[in-house]
């Protein structure tokens, strides 16, 4: 089993799916001979040619729109955003056309939109976005956000094979920092299933994306204090694994939701609201969210670090809940 980085896991998923299924193709800016701004598609044009690895003009509406049109015709397009921030430029197309196609007119529109997201790389306000919440209230698009190489590969395959549109959120901070032994055989990670990274009984930390490592670290610290924390990697945001969330809260009775996007209106609000409704009787303490400040991600490292959530804030929240 070779050691695979998170970014290569994504590349391998695309390559294997394109080999398996002639309907799959990649479309985006600089994805061809350049192999993508992060080299996610390095070498793919050599194997599949410019007809299936399509370099486009700087036109996100055209990328998402053309992918959607092709999907209606039975293709399985993967549309790359050079940074996921630029999906805002095709927001209309994705939420209005693509996401509603099945519900409105019964037409399956299975595209995958993927691209580098997240902060911690001093990318500044326009290269650090965590986009999930922007799409949660516009029904019809699934949203996944893997934190491991294993999940990145398995979820991307699941997304490509899914009959509905999927927003695949890659965390660029993890691209080359995460390396794992991956199975050599084909596998998928089902969309909508959480992964319990660490079992515990005193408190639950629900998170996803790059924050799973912050949760791990916090859980390790808590363990040193004799507190047993459960860490749930949600992996899928829409649909999300409500059962896994509620089961864990029923067990630990205390819960922190941790995400990298700003607090207000973040995806964590939905999970907190579900818990407050459906696990009310199990709660021994308030539902806590740890998230970024309600600001665009600032560029300067001390500001960025202050804006994004970190272990210290998770620990502080945990201790508050445990004292409760």
């Amino acid at each position, binding site marked *: 089993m070779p050691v695979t980085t998170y970014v290569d896991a994504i590349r391998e998923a695309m390559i294997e799916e394109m080999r398996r299924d002639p309907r799959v193709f990649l479309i985006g800016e600089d994805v061809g001979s350049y192999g993508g701004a992060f080299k996610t598609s390095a070498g793919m044009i050599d194997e599949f040619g410019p*007809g299936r690895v399509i370099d486009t003009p700087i036109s996100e*509406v055209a990328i998402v*729109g053309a992918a*959607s049109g092709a999907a209606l015709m*039975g293709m399985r397009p993967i549309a790359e955003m050079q940074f996921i921030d630029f999906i805002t430029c095709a927001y209309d*197309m994705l939420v209005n*056309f693509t996401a509603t196609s*099945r519900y409105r007119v019964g037409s399956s529109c299975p595209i995958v939109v993927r691209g580098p997201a997240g902060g911690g790389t001093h990318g500044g306000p326009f290269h650090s976005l965590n986009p999930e919440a922007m799409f949660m209230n516009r029904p019809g698009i699934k949203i996944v956000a893997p934190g491991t190489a294993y999940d990145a590969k398995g979820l991307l395959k699941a997304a490509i094979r899914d009959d*509905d549109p999927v927003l695949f959120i890659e965390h660029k901070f993890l691209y080359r920092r995460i390396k794992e032994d991956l199975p050599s055989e084909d596998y998928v990670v089902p969309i909508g299933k959480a992964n319990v990274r660490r079992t515990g009984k005193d408190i639950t930390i629900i998170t996803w994306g790059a924050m799973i490592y912050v949760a791990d670290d916090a859980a390790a610290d808590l363990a040193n204090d004799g507190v047993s924390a459960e860490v749930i990697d949600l992996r899928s945001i829409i649909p999300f694994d409500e059962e896994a969330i509620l089961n864990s809260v029923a067990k630990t009775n205390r819960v922190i939701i941790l995400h990298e996007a700003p607090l207000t209106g973040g995806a964590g609000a939905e999970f907190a609201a579900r818990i407050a409704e459906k696990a009310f009787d199990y709660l021994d303490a308030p539902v806590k969210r740890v998230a970024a400040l309600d600001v665009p991600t600032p560029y300067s490292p001390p500001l960025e670090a202050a804006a994004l959530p970190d272990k210290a804030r998770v620990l502080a929240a945990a201790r508050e809940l445990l004292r409760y």
Partner: protein
Amino acid sequence: MTELSLETHGLTRENLLAIDYFLRLTRTLEERLVALFRQAKVIGGLYRSLGQEGESVAAAYALDYKQGDVVQPLIRNMGSILVAGAKPSDIIKQYMAKADSPTRGRELNIHFGHPDRDGFIGQISMLGDMIPVMAGITLAGRMQKRNLVGMAFIGDGASSTGAFYEGMNFATVQRLPLVVILENNGYAYSTPTAKQSAVKTLADKAHAFGCASEVVDGNDVLATYAAAKRAVDRARAGEGVTLIEAKTFRIKGHAEHDNQAYVPSALIEEWSAKDPVVRFEKALVDAGLAATSDFDAIQARVRSEVDTATDEAERSPMPRPEEAALGLFAGDGYWGKG
């Protein structure tokens, strides 16, 4: 206004009468919808194509639906999807929001159709968005080696959108088999074309993409057909995108509720005199290709078809409320497989 050409561009008498049938079907069906609208049986707005039926029908008639060609109408191009095979009963059911309408009551008017199964695809309301989508449909056709051609309609107003621009540019640079009919009908809602764009001729927008272009009298059915056919042939031959500006006029307001007080009445009179159906039929008669009795027979057929369709639509039930929750994702099987 130049006289209608007698050159029929390879169309047989049968073809010409078929075109007349679609023209009259469009107009009669719209008139029926107006009647249903006044009876409050049409839910939502009603947008007429009176005076523009010519270009909708003629352009769409240049496609080959057996070959897999796909037409994408806007609100004023009902005629084009009738040509592609849409059933009048389906259209009335859509307007009446019935359970057995193609979209089962989820979508309005002619927002329906699957490009592969039906040969046409309904728009979404966000103007301009269908151009990139049609680029993708034709891209898929090429990948699938189906040699199909796509035709998209877009209004003078909608041609101000960024989506139109991105889609045209992408399609042109990819040499996709796409024909775009830019309907210049003088107004976008209340906004005259001169406030929409400072270009003299909207066809000049083609220069921004480097695609072929043509200007045509959209109220001249045969000229519009010929221009569309040339563009379709070019597209099918791998020569890429054509932008055709069809000059026409919106005889009615933006929608039934709009009395278009902002349109000088002289303009309406001027263009009413150029009615595309009247002109087309006169040309056929003058050329000895058809007689009034042919049109009477067509009209009788059209009326009876519209009557039957109306009856069918009126009898259809409204959707059951429970269905509202279904069919968002494939998982619940609401739309069947695929």
